[in-house]
């Protein structure tokens, strides 16, 4: 078959489609978004009626995927690393319920925080949930793991974590496809109580999971995704996890690595192979993208000298790996690289020219000024860029939904009025429940839901909030005359400032909705049609 040029994320989507997946569930998040987007536009996926609508958040996505698995079909759920925090309850418990149809949880980590608040390593979660983890070294392997992962999941009746990182996700390579596996028929779990985690049942299932650990390990030892390459120089052995293998190979263009190399693509670690390396090598260098997960396991609490990696300074403790860092870890001399000339200024991302968030912030800054600084709790989205010059408009950005709840807590502490700024998509992701808390106590907070009809920051995906925000707020119990929609334009500036001041002075929950279409979506015809139908502009 001819090779097709795919991003790592797209290769996973293609692998899952070819692996008999019946549905992908996801909430957008860099660098995982392109997996679902690929399924949404893929012709074969559409012909096969593979589900690919966005979910409201990662938890709802994880649960829906688990439901599809319950019904016997193969499902994938995708998210960025911090999304797994949101889905964690469902994720950890899905290891105990186990699966019926194969279930792959694909999580994209972002070491070096290219587009994220942290660089947490999802392999910790996989280990925590005690399930097998797959970690591809390149895009072709990502394709194969997505395709094979369902089988592995069905073999052991547990979900499988597929862990990737930004660099793999956003890099293209020619992919060779394999044949398409048919989707499963519907079927119920053999044990009708498998998914009922009452303590008495959960205890049993947990024991089953514990007993299975040894089988996961044996599977890793025999897995084609792990392999041991012999080497003549036993002074050093190298364990290369996932993508890190490429940076190792890059330093040996003639494929003449003198040391034994253990490539890791499937966890739990293949114990026998690790033992072999420890038996024959004087020192062991661990190359892994993200946190020193493997290194810490091998080093143990007693800091065994023999293990080198991110914990002893052989490699940096944080940030992404690259060929140069790996070269110095291997002891290669490198020429001093040229510096970036001083004349080059940083060019941080910024809100687009004509973005409605800007006008909302200009008005908010003026209104807040009368009450005093330091009271604006924001959230995650394009509007987070309001933290930068020249706006300096916000005082927090922590996790999705935290704006409303942090404002409430601050108001409880006496910071009155407190203001929350949240986007439309983030509001339906996890702002609604926080708003209910505030309404329940009539907290003196003003919530700006800056509505641009889209999930902007991640590339303008559909927003579940479209056309529903006022009704949701009313339903939650915000007083209707304190739900105010505004058109954020320069012309309306004075009006906006006046309304914001009034609402901030109000001793209860108010919701102000600055509403203007995201400038990046003006050519989106489907959205235009929906806006027309909903009579929105």
């Amino acid at each position: 078959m001819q090779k097709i040029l795919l991003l790592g994320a797209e290769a996973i989507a293609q692998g899952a489609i070819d692996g008999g997946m019946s549905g992908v569930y996801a909430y957008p998040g860099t660098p995982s978004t392109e997996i679902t987007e690929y399924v949404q536009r893929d012709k074969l996926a559409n012909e096969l009626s593979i589900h690919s609508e966005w979910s409201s958040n990662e938890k709802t996505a994880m649960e829906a995927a688990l439901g599809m698995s319950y019904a016997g079909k193969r499902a994938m759920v995708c998210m960025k690393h911090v999304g797994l925090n949101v889905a964690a309850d469902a994720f950890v418990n899905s290891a105990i319920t186990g699966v019926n149809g194969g279930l792959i949880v694909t999580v994209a980590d972002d070491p070096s925080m290219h587009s994220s608040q942290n660089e947490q390593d999802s392999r910790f979660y996989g280990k925590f949930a005690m399930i097998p983890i797959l970690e591809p070294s390149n895009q072709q392997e990502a394709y194969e793991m997505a395709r094979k992962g369902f089988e592995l999941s069905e073999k052991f009746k547990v979900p499988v974590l597929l862990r990737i990182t930004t660099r793999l996700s956003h890099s293209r390579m020619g992919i060779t496809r394999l044949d398409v596996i048919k989707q499963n028929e519907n079927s119920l779990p053999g044990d009708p109580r498998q998914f009922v985690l009452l303590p008495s049942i959960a205890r049993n299932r947990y024991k089953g999971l514990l007993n299975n650990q040894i089988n996961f390990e044996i599977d890793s030892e025999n897995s084609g995704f792990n392999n041991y390459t012999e080497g003549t120089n036993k002074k050093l052995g190298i364990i290369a996890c996932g993508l890190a293998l490429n940076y190792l190979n890059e330093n040996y263009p003639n494929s003449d690595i003198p040391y034994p190399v253990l490539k890791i693509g499937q966890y739990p670690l293949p114990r026998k192979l690790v033992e072999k390396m420890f038996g024959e090598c004087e020192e062991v260098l661990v190359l892994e993208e993200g946190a020193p997960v493997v290194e810490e396991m091998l080093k143990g609490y007693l800091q065994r000298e023999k293990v080198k990696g991110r914990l002893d300074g052989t490699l940096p403790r944080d940030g992404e790996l690259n060929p140069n860092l790996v070269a110095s870890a291997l002891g290669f001399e490198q020429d001093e690289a040229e510096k970036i000339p001083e004349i080059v200024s940083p060019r941080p991302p910024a809100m687009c020219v004509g973005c409605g968030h800007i006008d909302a912030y200009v008005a908010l800054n003026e209104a807040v000024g009368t009450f005093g600084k330091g009271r604006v709790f924001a959230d995650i989205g394009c509007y987070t860029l309001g933290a930068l010059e020249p706006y300096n408009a916000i005082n927090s950005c922590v996790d999705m939904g935290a704006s409303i709840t942090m404002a409430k807590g601050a108001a409880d502490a006496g910071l009155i009025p407190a203001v929350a700024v949240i986007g439309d998509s983030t509001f339906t992701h996890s702002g609604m429940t926080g708003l209910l808390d505030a309404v329940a106590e009539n907290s003196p907070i003003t919530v700006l839901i800056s509505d641009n009809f889209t999930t902007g920051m991640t590339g303008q995906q559909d927003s579940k909030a479209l056309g529903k925000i006022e009704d949701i707020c009313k339903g939650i119990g915000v007083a209707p005359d304190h739900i105010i929609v505004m058109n954020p334009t320069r012309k309306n500036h004075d009006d906006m400032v006046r309304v914001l001041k009034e609402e901030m002075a109000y001793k209860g929950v108010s919701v102000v909705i600055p509403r203007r279409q995201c400038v990046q979506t003006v050519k989106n015809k489907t959205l235009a049609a929906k806006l027309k139908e909903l009579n929105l502009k």
Partner: protein
Amino acid sequence: MKIDIILAGVGGQGILTIAATIGTAALQNNLFLKQSEVHGMSQRGGDVQANLRISDKPIASDLIAKGKADVIIAVEPMESLRYLPFLSKDGWLVTNSTPFVNINNYPDKDKLIKKVKAVKNNIVIDADTMAKEIKAARSSNIVMLGAASSFLDLKYEDLEAAIRTIFERKGEKIVETNLKALKIGKEAAEKQI
């Protein structure tokens, strides 16, 4: 054959179209390819780059090591300099001279161009003006590709074929415009070599 290319610009300037064109030409020649891109936050007007690696043997790393890039193709002059640490000693810096100013502390243009011209092998062309002259303002990225075309170790006809493949959907007129943009870029660069 092995060539490592860094594409540089600002989010929204079309460096991925350059990458896609080169990539298509490479695949049509059955070469191996890796193309690392920037998606996400930086696409909102921040600095973006792509690492494009082509070889007749399998490629290991998605990222190019420091000092190893054969060519930097930049659609913006300040961005061309940001990746200087990656350029090899004999590598070529090929850049557009028109600044994209979306920050307050953008440096003085003359000083910037002087700095670019201090690089051993450089080509500086005003791709924006040239693209406008052929009434194809949006094709300045392809003008830059043309300017760099002789350093890519790919046949010019293969790049032309790739342009046809990439722009086919948009109609014959767009294809022709971009072929012209490619040509004027190539010619302008040849005058400077």
